[in-house]
């Protein structure tokens, strides 16, 4: 078979390389027909096959005591106690959001919810990690994405409780939209999407199938260019109402034993869901008949049906003979369901159009056949170094604080999260705005903490260390609620890995993630990789490995929040500070430069400080706790005041040499928290800190309505709030 017989235009359309085509022909011992080529094209896309990242991803730790389900399923699952499992995953929807922000973001939310539903879990929370170019220039992306997330999440009735938003020039043409969903299921009702049992029926449920989203997965696997807006038809349109009905029907379904498995139809639609479901059972295959698929429009070809990415659909594997039970459940919710095929034991996916076979491909060729790509890796030029001695001294810490708090990366996110319903479900115990969100598990005293984190500027300066910071910061955010970190889901957003510097970033990032997750004992149980976040010829994004983390607290009555609560409490800095100004917000905002290395990170030390905070929280010694991160100590302290509506009075800060004053106020040394403590609890806390060998230093005392360091700054809280709350107004 020579390559000439397949038109190169057609190969480009399905995003396969001539080399990949040769492998297909060799394995099949015949040329694939058009339907088969399309099916292989989507499943071998980077988005579905992970062909550039798979070898690296194997280095990530995924095992742990609490892990019930690691990577490879619709979502990961960990046991959290009292017979409950938390199911969670994060996924990117960057490319669709770049060209159609509202629907791109909305369907990203819809897709990740279905992943959690497929595990038999009821989704209880959503988080979104977002990155845009600077405002007001990127307003179109920002407004559309925020509205799309709200439009979907608010309508379906799942609270959006957390996430993050950053602005940087590198995201101007390539916004990052990562959606995370967390669900709950009884451990013994956790489902897996495995097509077990020859002869069992395959039912397609939910929305009818249309032509929308064809080649969406392939589109997500190439760089954006001027013609990308022509790909708008590859972006699907979400229907959150339909998904709400689908969600409730699937919850009813999970109560019966008529169902073997449920699988989401996401990227690559029917093709990937059937292949993946069968691929998880050795030797299993499937037969489906496209003529049985309920359609939204006339004239659809088998190719269209197999590649459609119409939203709000699920594949259900049903015990043979019990199809009518399933049908009845969907009828209650006025949803369509149809038997479209069955499970076989021939290891092939055979597609019929009535009696005619239109495609027949080995399952393993579809799911595991894409040749892994070995890419060149080159370290780029190191980032410009930072010479602290040449930095002008800090003149007015108060003015610097106001500018930092008003900067787009540090200001209040309330204008965003008040557009999201974050309360529905009656479980949100710690609402957005603090460190991690905390939701109670109804009927128990358990609290589930959740957060997403990534400082991409650190990752840009040092991808390995930056990735470690992302894990460490997520863990600190969890700990700041009093919960212990449990497990991670990650979303790796990168530029084009064919460029050796980008592949090097990917390698370094994964090494950093692996090291930090091992050290902090948080396995990665699910995740997603989004590559090709470049625009032709222009900018590449910073490496952006978003870490979604969950944690658990045994009694949510013992939770901690960031805001100062009581007048006259001691306000303390836990952990020691160094001259860590490299890559800091202070450097960017006040000196207009991104330089140096991110702060050094001692992972063992992180663990120790976290354990101290958790022990103190458990003993009831702390009144509040807040992670000290972007913007440094003074920004964190101001946030404690803003969130609690209470000021703080401190003596002048006189750091001991070699610590500089600017670094003491605004340096971003990790492993630090700001806590407040009732005066009578001080001796116990001091003893506990000594036992953990952690330095604690007294900053001042809570109370009043100013933030004050004697002789250095004195600002009314109202003025600070004004700066903080208007940072996103343009």
């Amino acid at each position, binding site marked *: 078979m020579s390559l000439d017989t397949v038109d190169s235009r057609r190969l480009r359309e399905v995003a396969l390389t001539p080399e990949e085509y040769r492998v297909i022909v060799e394995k099949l011992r015949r040329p694939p027909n058009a339907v088969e080529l399309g099916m292989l094209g989507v499943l071998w896309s980077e988005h579905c096959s992970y062909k550039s990242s798979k070898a690296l991803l194997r280095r990530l730790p995924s095992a742990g005591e609490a892990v019930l389900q690691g990577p490879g399923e619709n979502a990961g699952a960990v046991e959290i106690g009292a017979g409950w499992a938390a199911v969670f995953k994060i996924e990117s929807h960057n490319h669709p959001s770049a060209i159609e922000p509202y629907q791109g973001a909305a369907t990203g939310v819809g897709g990740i919810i279905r992943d959690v539903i497929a595990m038999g879990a009821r989704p209880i929370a959503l988080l979104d990690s977002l990155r845009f170019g600077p405002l007001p220039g990127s307003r179109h992306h920002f407004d559309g994405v925020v509205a799309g997330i709200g439009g979907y999440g608010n309508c379906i009735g799942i609270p959006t409780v957390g996430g993050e938003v950053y602005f940087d020039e590198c995201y101007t043409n390539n916004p990052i939209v990562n959606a995370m969903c967390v669900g709950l299921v009884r451990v013994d009702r956790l489902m897996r999407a495995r097509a077990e049992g020859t002869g069992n029926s395959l039912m397609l449920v939910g929305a009818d199938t249309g032509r929308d989203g064809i080649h969406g997965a392939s589109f997500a696997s190439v760089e954006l260019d001027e013609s990308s807006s022509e790909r708008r038809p590859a972006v699907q349109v979400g229907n959150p109402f339909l998904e709400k009905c689908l969600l409730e029907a699937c919850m009813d379904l999970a109560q019966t034993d008529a169902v073997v498995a449920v699988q989401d139809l996401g990227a690559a639609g029917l093709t990937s869901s059937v292949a993946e479901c069968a691929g998880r059972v050795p030797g299993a295959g499937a037969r489906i008949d496209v003529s049985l698929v309920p359609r939204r429009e006339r004239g659809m070809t088998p190719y269209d049906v197999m590649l459609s990415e119409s939203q709000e659909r699920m594949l259900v594997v049903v015990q043979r003979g019990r199809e009518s039970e399933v049908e009845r459940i969907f009828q209650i919710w006025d949803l369509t369901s149809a038997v479209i095929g069955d499970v076989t034991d021939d290891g092939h996916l055979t597609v019929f159009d009535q009696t005619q076979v239109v495609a027949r491909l080995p399952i393993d060729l579809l799911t595991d056949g894409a040749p892994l790509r070995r890419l060149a890796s080159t370290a780029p030029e190191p980032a410009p170094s930072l010479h602290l001695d040449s930095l002008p001294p800090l003149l007015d810490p108060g003015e610097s604080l106001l500018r930092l708090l008003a900067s787009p990366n540090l200001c209040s996110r309330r204008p965003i999260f008040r557009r999201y319903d974050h309360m529905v479900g*009656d479980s949100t115990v710690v609402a957005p705005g603090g460190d991690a969100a905390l939701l109670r598990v109804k009927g128990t005293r358990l609290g589930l903490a959740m957060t997403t984190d990534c400082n991409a500027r650190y990752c840009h300066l040092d991808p390995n260390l930056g990735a470690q910071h992302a894990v460490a910061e997520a863990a600190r955010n969890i700990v700041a609620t009093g919960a212990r970190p449990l497990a991670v889901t990650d979303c790796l957003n990168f530029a084009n890995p064919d460029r050796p510097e980008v592949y090097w970033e990917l390698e370094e990032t994964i090494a950093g993630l692996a090291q930090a997750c091992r050290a902090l004992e948080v396995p990665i149980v699910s995740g997603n990789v989004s590559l090709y976040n470049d625009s032709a010829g222009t900018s590449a994004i910073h490496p952006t490995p978003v870490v979604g983390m969950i944690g658990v607290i045994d009694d949510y009555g013992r939770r901690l929040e960031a805001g100062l609560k009581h007048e006259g409490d001691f306000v303390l800095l836990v952990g020691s500070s160094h001259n860590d100004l490299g890559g800091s917000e202070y450097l960017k905002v006040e000196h207009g430069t991104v330089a140096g290395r991110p702060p050094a990170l001692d992972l063992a030390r992180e663990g120790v400080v976290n354990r101290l905070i958790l022990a103190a929280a458990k003993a009831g010694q702390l009144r509040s706790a807040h992670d000290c991160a972007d913007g440094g100590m003074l920004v964190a302290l101001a946030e404690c005041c803003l969130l609690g509506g209470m000021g703080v009075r401190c003596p002048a800060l006189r750091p001991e040499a070699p610590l500089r004053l600017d670094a003491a106020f605004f340096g971003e040394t990790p492993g630090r928290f700001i806590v407040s403590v009732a005066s009578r609890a001080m001796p116990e806390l001091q003893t506990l800190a000594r036992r953990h060998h952690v330095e604690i230093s007294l900053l001042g005392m809570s109370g009043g309505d100013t933030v004050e360091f004697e002789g250095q700054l004195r600002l009314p809280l109202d003025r600070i709030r004004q700066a903080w709350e208007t940072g996103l107004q343009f």
Partner: protein
Amino acid sequence: MKFGVVVFPGTWSDRDCGWVIDQVVGAKLQYLWHKDADLKGCDCVILPGGFAYGDYLRTGAIARFAPVMQEVGEFADRGGLVWGICNGFQILCEAGLLPGALIRNASLEYRCEWTHLSVERTDLAFTSQCAEREVIRVPIGHGEGSYFAEPAVLSRLEQNGQVVFRYCDAGGRVVPGANPNGSLHNIAGIINKRGNVLGMMPHPERCSEPELGGADGLKLFRSVAGHGLKVLMS
């Protein structure tokens, strides 16, 4: 007192209302399906929050035609307690059980945040456990919650004392700054003339336990539960 909670496709506060009624108040709970033409002996029917039928046309515009709504209308005519919360308030207006309409928030954005409400009627089955002019803290979660009515309707509502809740500041002052959505006269909730059909945009079922940030909503649920007792004793 038996509470009925209506479930339309797209409703999501059904489970939250159910949780408060069953687990917090400890009253009898019956879910009512939108296709049912039977209120199953409930004494108070709640139309909860959500996006009934997706609310794609106009909030509540489809829901008012649900089979269960026929029964709800007749139940209200007989004097039964009907309580519309958020989407339920929108549906009651569409169904003509309450006057006026809920239009898009003045900000043109969805708003999920805490508000203060001044309680202006305490002689009702829904508010008897509140003090006169008490300020309660209750969150909202809506994109179309701006109360609108013709001037004549509005002045009739005011004359009859049919405004039950008004958005106010923490000190109880009804000021423009406390109005989260542009509602006329800061209206957050109204009652029909007879006093048995209440519509309100804020969500009392989201603030009936202290761990959720406040428990003022419980006063409303307890008022209704206690009302049942009063009827029984009389």
